[in-house]
C-alpha cells in the first residue's frame, strides 16, 4: 500500500497520493484519441522518470475496460461514452485512475474479485483486463459506488522500485462520507503547453548526430565502406563520372570534325580522280567511311579535341601500308590488333588542325591523327568500363601499341597524376570527415551540457514559482482572515456579533461588581451571624436574663409575702386596722404592677430573641443565595471568555 495514501473512501487519485501531488486530467478518453492523450501525458511527465510504456499501456487498458464492463466486443464504437482519467504524481508514486460507468444490465462481481485478479483467474473480460493492469503496476485498486454505477480503476506505480507488488484492493465508496482532499494543483490537459511538448524536432546539419563516441571509431562513420577496394572503386567511379562529363563535350566536337573531314576528303578524292593534278604527297590516302550516326557511335565517341591538340607524338612510318577504305571500327569490341597502321605523313611536331570552314581546302587526315583518334576512342571505351583493371590492361596495350618513350611517359605521367590526385582527394576526404566528426562531437557535448543546465534552471524556476504561488495564496488567505477579523463596518452580522460581545462583557463586569458587593455583604452577615449565634448560645441578652431572674425572684418573694399577708389578713381580720389594710393593698398593687412590668419586659426580651433568630435565618438564606450567585457568575464568566476569544471578560 502506498505510504502517502490518505483515503480509500474517495474517488480520484488525491486520496492515494500525498498533498504535494500534481494531477493531470481529462474527461474525454476514447479509443480514437487515446494515442494523442498518451503522447501528451508521456511528454509532460517524462522528467519524472515514470515508466512511459506502462502509462501508455494503462491508458489503453482503461479504454478496453469501458467496453469490457458493458460486455461489448472490443471494437471501436462511438456510442461507448468517454472515460475520465486522472494521472497523479508525487515523490513516491505515479497513479493512473480511469473512471467510467457500467450499464444497468450487468455489474461486475465484486465478491472475491481481488483474489481472482491476483491469482490470474478472472471470470470475465473485465477481470481479465484487470489482471493485465495488475501485472504492470505496483498495486491495483478498484473503487465503485452502486448508486451511480461508478467504477474507478487505479493503477499505482512506485517510481523507485518497479518490482514492488501489493495485493489488489476492491473498495466500495460512500461518496457522502468521502473526505475533502487537497492537492498541489489540478491541470486539465488543455491548459498544458501541448504545442511545445509535442513539437517535432527539425533536422538540421548541426542536429545530425553521428554515432560513435570515439573519433577513431571508423566503423560507425558516415562514410561506411565494406572493403577498401570498394571505396576505391566508388572514388574511381566518381572520378570517371567527372571525366565522362568533360569527355562527352569533347565527343560532340570530334564528331563534327570527323564528319567535316570525311566530306572534305571525299571532295578531294573526287577531284583527284577527275583531274590529273598531282597530289603533293604520294601517299595514298583513303578516308575511312564515316560511320552511320547512330546512338551507339554517339555514345562511344568522346570529345578529345583538347587531347588531340596536345597529342605530343605521332606514329612513325615504319610500315607504310595501304589504307583501306574499310571502316575502322571504333567500338569497344574492336581489338587492338585490328587497328591498322597508317603511313605517317606528319612528323611528331605536326599539330592536328581543325578545319572550321568546309568551303576552304580540305584538311588531309594524317595518319597520326587517325591513329590518335582511334587510340583515344579505345581509351574512352576502356575508361568507361567498370573495372580499373581493364583500364590498366588497355593502358598497357596502348603503351605497347604506341611508341614507347614519349607515349609511355605520357601515359605514365597521366596515370601518376591521376593517382596523385586520387590520393590527394582521399586524404582531403579523410581529413574532412575527421574534422566533421570532431566538430559534431563538440557540438553534441555542448548541446548536452546546455540542455542539462536548461533543465536544471527550469526545474528551479518551476519550484520557485510554485513556492511563490503557494505563498501568495497563503498571504491572500491570511489577508482575508485579518480583514474579516478587523473589518468593523462591512458586515452587519459581524457588527451584531460585536455588539453582543460588548453587551456580554458589560454584563459580566456588572455581575462581577454585584458579586463583589454581595461577597462583602455576605462577609458582614457572616460576622453578624457568628456574633448572633454566639449570643444565642450564651444567652441572647445577659442583662435581660439577669433581670428576668431577679424579677422572677421578686415575683416569688412577692407571692410569698402576699400569701403571708393573706394569711395574716385572714388571721388578723379582726385585728387589723383599715390603714394596715390599705397599706397592704397598696403594697399588693405595687407588687402586682411590678409583676406586670416584669412580665412585659420578659415578653419584650422573648420577642427580641425571636427577632434575632429570624434575622439569623434570613442571613443564612442570603448567604446561601450569594454563594450560588457567585458560582453562577463565575460559570458565566468562564463561558463568556471562551466565546469572545479574549481575556477581557475574565479580567
Amino acid at each position: 500500500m502506498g505510504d502517502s495514501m490518505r483515503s480509500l473512501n474517495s474517488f480520484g487519485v488525491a486520496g492515494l497520493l500525498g498533498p504535494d501531488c500534481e494531477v493531470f486530467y481529462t474527461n474525454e478518453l476514447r479509443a480514437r484519441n487515446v494515442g494523442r492523450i498518451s503522447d501528451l501525458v508521456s511528454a509532460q511527465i517524462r522528467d519524472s522518470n515514470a515508466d512511459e510504456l506502462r502509462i501508455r499501456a494503462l491508458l489503453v487498458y482503461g479504454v478496453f475496460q469501458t467496453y469490457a464492463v458493458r460486455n461489448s466486443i472490443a471494437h471501436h464504437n462511438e456510442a461507448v461514452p468517454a472515460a475520465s482519467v486522472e494521472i497523479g504524481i508525487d515523490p513516491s508514486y505515479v497513479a493512473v485512475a480511469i473512471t467510467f460507468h457500467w450499464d444497468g444490465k450487468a455489474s461486475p462481481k465484486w465478491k472475491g474479485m481481488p483474489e481472482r485478479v491476483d491469482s490470474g483467474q478472472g471470470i470475465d473480460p473485465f477481470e481479465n483486463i484487470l489482471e493485465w493492469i495488475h501485472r504492470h503496476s505496483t498495486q491495483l485498486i478498484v473503487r465503485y459506488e452502486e448508486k451511480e454505477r461508478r467504477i474507478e480503476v487505479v493503477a499505482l506505480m512506485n517510481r523507485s522500485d518497479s518490482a514492488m507488488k501489493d495485493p489488489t484492493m476492491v473498495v466500495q465508496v460512500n461518496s457522502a462520507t468521502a473526505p475533502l482532499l487537497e492537492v498541489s494543483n489540478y491541470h486539465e490537459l488543455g491548459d498544458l503547453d501541448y504545442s511545445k511538448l509535442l513539437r517535432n524536432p527539425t533536422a538540421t546539419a548541426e542536429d545530425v548526430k553521428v554515432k560513435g563516441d570515439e573519433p577513431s571509431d571508423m566503423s560507425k562513420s558516415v562514410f561506411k565502406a565494406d572493403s577498401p577496394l570498394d571505396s576505391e572503386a566508388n572514388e574511381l567511379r566518381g572520378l570517371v563520372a567527372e571525366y565522362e562529363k568533360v569527355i562527352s563535350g569533347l565527343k560532340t566536337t570530334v564528331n563534327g570534325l570527323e564528319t567535316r573531314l570525311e566530306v572534305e576528303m571525299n571532295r578531294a578524292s573526287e577531284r583527284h580522280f577527275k583531274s590529273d593534278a598531282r597530289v603533293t604527297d604520294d601517299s595514298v590516302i583513303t578516308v575511312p567511311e564515316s560511320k552511320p550516326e547512330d546512338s551507339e557511335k554517339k555514345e562511344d565517341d568522346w570529345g578529345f579535341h583538347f587531347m588531340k591538340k596536345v597529342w605530343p607524338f605521332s606514329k612513325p612510318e615504319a610500315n607504310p601500308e595501304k589504307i583501306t577504305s574499310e571502316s575502322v571500327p571504333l567500338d569497344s569490341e574492336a581489338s587492338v590488333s585490328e587497328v591498322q597502321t597508317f603511313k605517317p605523313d606528319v612528323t611528331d611536331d605536326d599539330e592536328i588542325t581543325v578545319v572550321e570552314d568546309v568551303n576552304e581546302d580540305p584538311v588531309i587526315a594524317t595518319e597520326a591523327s587517325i591513329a590518335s583518334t582511334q587510340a583515344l576512342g579505345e581509351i574512352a571505351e576502356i575508361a568507361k568500363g567498370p573495372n580499373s583493371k581493364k583500364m590498366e590492361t588497355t593502358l598497357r596495350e596502348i603503351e605497347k601499341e604506341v611508341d614507347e618513350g614519349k607515349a609511355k611517359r605520357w601515359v605514365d605521367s597521366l596515370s601518376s597524376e591521376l593517382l596523385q590526385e586520387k590520393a590527394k582527394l582521399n586524404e582531403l576526404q579523410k581529413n574532412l570527415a575527421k574534422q566533421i566528426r570532431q566538430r559534431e562531437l563538440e557540438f553534441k557535448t555542448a548541446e548536452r551540457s546546455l540542455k542539462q543546465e536548461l533543465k536544471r534552471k527550469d526545474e528551479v524556476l518551476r519550484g520557485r514559482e510554485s513556492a511563490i504561488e503557494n505563498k501568495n495564496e497563503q498571504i491572500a488567505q491570511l489577508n482575508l482572515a485579518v480583514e474579516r477579523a478587523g473589518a468593523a463596518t462591512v458586515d452587519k452580522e459581524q457588527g451584531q456579533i460585536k455588539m453582543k460581545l460588548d453587551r456580554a462583557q458589560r454584563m459580566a463586569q456588572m455581575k462581577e461588581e454585584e458579586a463583589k458587593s454581595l461577597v462583602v455583604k455576605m462577609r458582614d452577615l457572616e460576622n453578624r451571624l457568628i456574633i448572633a449565634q454566639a449570643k444565642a448560645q450564651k444567652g441572647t441578652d445577659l442583662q435581660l436574663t439577669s433581670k428576668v431572674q431577679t424579677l422572677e425572684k421578686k415575683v416569688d418573694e412577692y407571692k410569698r409575702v402576699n400569701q403571708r399577708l393573706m394569711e395574716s389578713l385572714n388571721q388578723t381580720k379582726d385585728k387589723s386596722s383599715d390603714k394596715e389594710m390599705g397599706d397592704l393593698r397598696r403594697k399588693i398593687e405595687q407588687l402586682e404592677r411590678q409583676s406586670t412590668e416584669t412580665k412585659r419586659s420578659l415578653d419584650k426580651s422573648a420577642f427580641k430573641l425571636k427577632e434575632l433568630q429570624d434575622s439569623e435565618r434570613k442571613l443564612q438564606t442570603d448567604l446561601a443565595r450569594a454563594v450560588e450567585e457567585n458560582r453562577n457568575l463565575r460559570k458565566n464568566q468562564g463561558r463568556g471568555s471562551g466565546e469572545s476569544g479574549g481575556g477581557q471578560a475574565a479580567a
Partner: protein
Amino acid sequence: MQFKTRKLPKSKAAELVSYPVDTAEPYRPLPAPVYVLLSRNEKLVSVKGPFDFFTARDLERMKGAGTYFYGPILKRVEPFHLAAREVKTMIGWSQPTATRVLEAAPYEISDAILRKLATLWAPVASAAQPNETVIGVESYFAVAFANELCELIPGDRMEMARERDPDLYEIALLRSGVFVFLALHLGYMDVKVLSALRYRFFHELIQLTGLQTFVPISLELAELKRWTENLVHSPEVLMISSDQFQFSISRVTQKLKSRLLRVRKELADPETILAHTYDDGGLGNLRPDEEAKEVGDG
C-alpha cells in the same frame, strides 16, 4: 424572476429586435422578455418573461396576430449565444470525419473552448479580495449560454414544470444552466452528455416522474451539482465569481479554481465590460446597492 420593464413606450420598438414567430422553436427558453406592440395603447407590453417559453399552440396563435419584439437585454445576451454556437462547432471538431484527416485532439479542443469561454468573463470588484483580479459573470447570461448550447428539454416536461411551480421552474432552469456552464470549464465536451445531465438536474429539482433513461453522473459533477444548488437559492440573478472557489478544497472547486486562474491571468481581457441585467438595457432592475438604498430610504 423579477423584471421591472413590463411595459415599454412605443418609441422603443425601433431599438428592439423583432421576435421571429414563424421560425421560432417551441419550448426553447427565451433569452429575453417578449413584448407585443399594442397600437391602441401605443405601448409595448410583455407577454413572456425571461426564460419562459412558447408552446407550439402559442406560436400558432401568434402568427399574424401582432408584432412581437425581444426585450432590450437581447443585445447583451447575443455575445453569449454566439459563443455557445462557436463552442458547439468546436466540440464538433472531435467527431471522426469521413476523410483521412486526423481530427483535433481533446486537449486542443478543451483549450479552444476555454479561450472562448474566457471572453464571457469580465473583471468585477471583490470586497474580500481587493488586491486580486476577480472575474465574474452573471447567472442570467450563463444560463442563456447553456440554453443555446444544449438540446431542448422535452416540451411536456417544460409545461408540467411551469404549471407545477413557476418559481421552481425558473430555479431549476437557472441551476441546471449554471451547472452546464461550469461543467464546460471542467473539460466535459460532449453536448449530448451535458444535455442529458442538464435534463436530469432539471427533472430532479422539479420532482417530475418518468425519467426513462438513467444518466450516470460522475462524482465531481455531483459535487458541482450540490455547489450549484447552494449558490442558486432563488430565481433572482446573482454573480458567479472566481473568488467563490478560492478557499474550498473539494475536488471540483479545486479544478475550477485552477482553470479560472488561467482564465483571469492569461485569457480574460481586462477591458471587458461586465454584462449585467440592471437598468433599462437589462431587465430594468436596480443594482443591489441601489436597492439597499431604496429600502433604507423607504
